[in-house]
């Protein structure tokens, strides 16, 4: 089965049809998506700014990250589920939208950046991440890259709403 057939099949599932055809379901799911994504990026920014060394420097980096990332992952789960529902309701058009593709690419890059950080600089975060000490360069780079990518995710996400044709509902 080629990808377009798969996308059309996804659109025809009962949940996708329900979201598309029910007038208020799409904005409700979208509201939860926006709420979740603001909490994802806002909480991840707290960690990123600590990694860069711009804020929360009086807190151990490892401890701050483990506490705040619990909020991030909870919010991310909500964002991913609601995002998948919104996608399903108009799968073909989203998949063929270049801003949507860029958003997904940035999400993948953010995941890669996080994995690389955990494999290398993050492994001895307890050693270097003590209060008021300068963070190693790889940690600062990982923080800055993460911040940049998540800002991109939000920007591309907003542009999807203005470029999707035919738009299912208001931008």
């Amino acid at each position: 089965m080629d990808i377009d057939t798969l996308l059309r099949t996804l659109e025809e599932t009962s949940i996708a049809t329900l979201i598309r055809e029910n007038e208020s379901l799409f904005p409700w799911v979208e509201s939860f998506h926006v709420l979740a994504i603001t909490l994802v990026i806002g909480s991840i920014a707290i960690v990123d700014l600590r990694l860069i060394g711009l804020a929360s420097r009086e807190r151990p980096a490892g401890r701050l990250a483990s506490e705040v990332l619990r909020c991030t992952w909870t919010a991310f789960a909500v964002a991913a589920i609601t995002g998948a529902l919104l996608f399903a309701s108009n799968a073909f058009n989203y998949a063929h939208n270049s801003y949507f593709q860029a958003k997904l690419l940035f999400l993948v890059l953010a995941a890669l950046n996080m994995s690389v950080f955990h494999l290398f600089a993050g492994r001895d975060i307890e050693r270097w991440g003590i209060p008021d000490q300068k963070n190693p360069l790889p940690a600062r780079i990982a923080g800055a890259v993460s911040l940049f990518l998540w800002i991109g995710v939000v920007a591309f996400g907003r542009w999807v709403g203005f470029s999707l044709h035919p738009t299912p509902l208001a931008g």
Partner: protein
Amino acid sequence: MQCVPSTLRIGSLIDPMRTRALLDFCSWLEETPLSQTIQSAGWIVPSVQTVHILSIAAVLSSVLMIDLRLMGLLWRDQSLARVSARFRPVIWWTLPVLLATGAVMIVGEPARSLANPVFQLKMALLVAAMIVTLSAQVPLGRNPAFWEGRRGAARIVAVFSLLLWAGIVFAGRWIAYF
């Protein structure tokens, strides 16, 4: 912008806020050169909305951190006063950015925002959220241990604050559908 299905319009329920004067003001604003520029340059509104959402992310996460500390769920090794000192400035410094970017959106589409019942609800929720935030922060400023002996009240204030801010985000998204 597409036409909105009639079932989505609850405007008629709260019509008193759609006064003649307000609608006249919206029509005037819409004709100003600034509004015309915002309307015709396609990149302005999505850019400004992106900054608006990022600012909301900053405010909301800061509110969440303070409220989770108020509830005693996070940052328990730090005092509430310390957590507030870290995150409160983010809230107050980002609010002007939210107001400025919000103003650009209003100038670009005055009638769809100012005369929109959901926008009016959002502003009412914003005022309520500010009052709740101040009611937690002002006593804390006078006495850093104020909330320590008031666990129940602290939880209620925190839950109220989170619900109000979530309501602001929801209302913000729903403006587009009314």
